[in-house]
């Protein structure tokens, strides 16, 4: 186990609005960390600071033991955004090739790598079709495939299962578990509470603070409820009573 992400006392404001206050968070290889929180709690900001899109006002973000933002580190992580973010007029292969080149994957490994990731998301048959003709689920799978390029040690996925059918959701999660078991570190945000039941650790973000950070079973015991959904609701209630 190697620590891949380490956020120390991260604070971030946009204008007068403080989005994050003193957030400490860490993620190691072979672990899936799920960030939960209501809209506007700062999940995306945590991801953006980890990616170096934003710079923290206070505290330090370490990724692979180096201080973010650092451009070179981005080659070692795979990122999947909330939106599909695909070039619609290109084929699936065109999209994969382009992003592989951006990630700096060597030319001689390109074809094999594209084959590997499309096989994982079962898009091999649609590889040479234009993305504009893809269904929503296919686009999502292609988006995931792009983030898998280069088999990055760290995966950051912002709501990977939003708007897709249950079968595909299961497929994506089984892929994520498989990657974890192979020693990848995975940071994921979600709105689907039962997805959080099966991860290794849940970080609960509310009002810009990380109010809980533990395994799902431990959290359920701590809040004396049976599901993560109830943990979420109870935490939200307590937050409002404060």
């Amino acid at each position, binding site marked *: 186990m190697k620590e891949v992400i380490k956020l120390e006392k991260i604070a971030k404001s946009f204008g007068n609005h403080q989005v994050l206050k003193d957030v400490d968070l860490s993620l190691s290889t072979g672990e899936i960390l799920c960030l939960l929180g209501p809209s506007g709690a700062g999940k995306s900001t945590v991801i953006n600071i980890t*990616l170096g*899109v934003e710079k923290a006002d206070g505290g330090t973000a370490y990724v692979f033991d180096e201080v973010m933002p650092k451009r070179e580190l981005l080659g070692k992580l795979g990122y999947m955004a909330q939106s599909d973010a695909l070039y619609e007029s290109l084929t699936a292969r065109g999209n994969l090739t382009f992003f592989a080149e*951006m990630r700096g994957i060597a030319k001689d490994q390109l074809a094999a790598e594209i084959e590997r990731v499309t096989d994982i998301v079962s898009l091999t048959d649609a590889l040479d079709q234009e993305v504009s003709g893809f269904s929503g689920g296919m686009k999502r799978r292609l988006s995931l495939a792009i983030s898998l390029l280069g088999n990055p040690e760290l995966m950051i996925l912002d709501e990977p299962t939003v708007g897709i059918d249950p079968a595909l959701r299961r497929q994506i999660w089984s892929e994520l578990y498989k990657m974890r078991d192979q020693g990848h570190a995975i940071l994921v945000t979600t709105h689907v509470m039962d997805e959080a039941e099966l991860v290794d650790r849940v970080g609960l973000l509310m009002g810009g603070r990380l109010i809980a950070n533990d395994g799902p079973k431990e959290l359920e015991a701590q809040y004396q409820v049976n599901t993560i959904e109830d943990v979420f609701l109870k935490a939200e209630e307590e937050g409002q009573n404060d």
Partner: protein
Amino acid sequence: MTRTFAIAKRILTELLHDKRTLAMIFIAPMLILTLMNYVFNITSSTSVDIATVHVEQQMDQGLAKTKNVNVKHYDSKEAADSALKDQKVDAVLSQTSDGNYDIFYANTDSSKTAATRKILANVFTQNKLSGLSQQVATLSQRVGVQPNLGSNFNLNESYSYGDKDTTFFASIMPIFMGFFVFLFVFLISGVSLLKERTKGTLSRLLATPVRRSEIIYGYMLSYSVIAILQTAIIVFFTISVLNVEVLGSVWNLLLINILLALVALALGLLVSTLASSEFQMIQFIPVVVVPQLIFSGIIPLNTMADWAQVIGDCLPMKYASNAMTEVVLHGQGFGQIWTDLLALFIFLVLLTAGNIFGLRRYRKV
């Protein structure tokens, strides 16, 4: 470098799939140039209708003999004036009791007013001359000397640019060649980066180790290819189909247009960061693009007020138009246009630096 090429290749592939945009880039300029050529050819000779009210016969005949003038006779000033109101005539010429002339212009078309003014002056001079030569003839008869009024001579006309059929279109054509490149590259590149931003592909791109400069250079590379193709088509079309003469080197035209396209690209990318939708991008046309055309030299810049000329100096299109005009109409080479090219280059460097820095908004490194 490989990333720059990959980005350029991707942008060009995307464009190739977008048939309508391709048609806009390559066919629309040809269509507009053809229309302009047609319009300026048929209005190239201004003919004027002049109403005359009781003027000397000599004056009347003098006018009638002049080319492109229709003389209409009216019995009263009132009738002539009302004809002018009804737009039947462009000017009313009447003679006062003391022998002076009054001319009343409609002046709704200043070119017709100017033409009438010139025609009248000519007729006056001619009448005076024929009067003079008559007097000389009578005087010489009285003195008994045969006057030598000089032999007839011919005037041979030749032209530095074009021929006797060259129209106004020829003088604005070089400006429009550049303007089309400017307009299309500005719009398409701006919308293209905007789409990357709104669709999220820019965020995804910036989550890879790509440099911000590599993204901007990728855009530049792909749009210089577009500019080269567009210029080549426009130049070929104007020379071979519209029969417009280009005195200077076509290579210099390409060079000017590539630089102009890159400036338009950098400006389009920069402006697109201020827009949040394609619709808002279109709204920048009157603010950013139209002034470029106004100060491009279609209206001669040296006739403008000093402060207006200063505005023109700040717009890249002015330098491109100037260089294009020098090459097309005056056949000048690189030695004459390098200052304009330098000005374009300075715009390019500043705007590009602005863009590379501006992408910091989307990623801090």
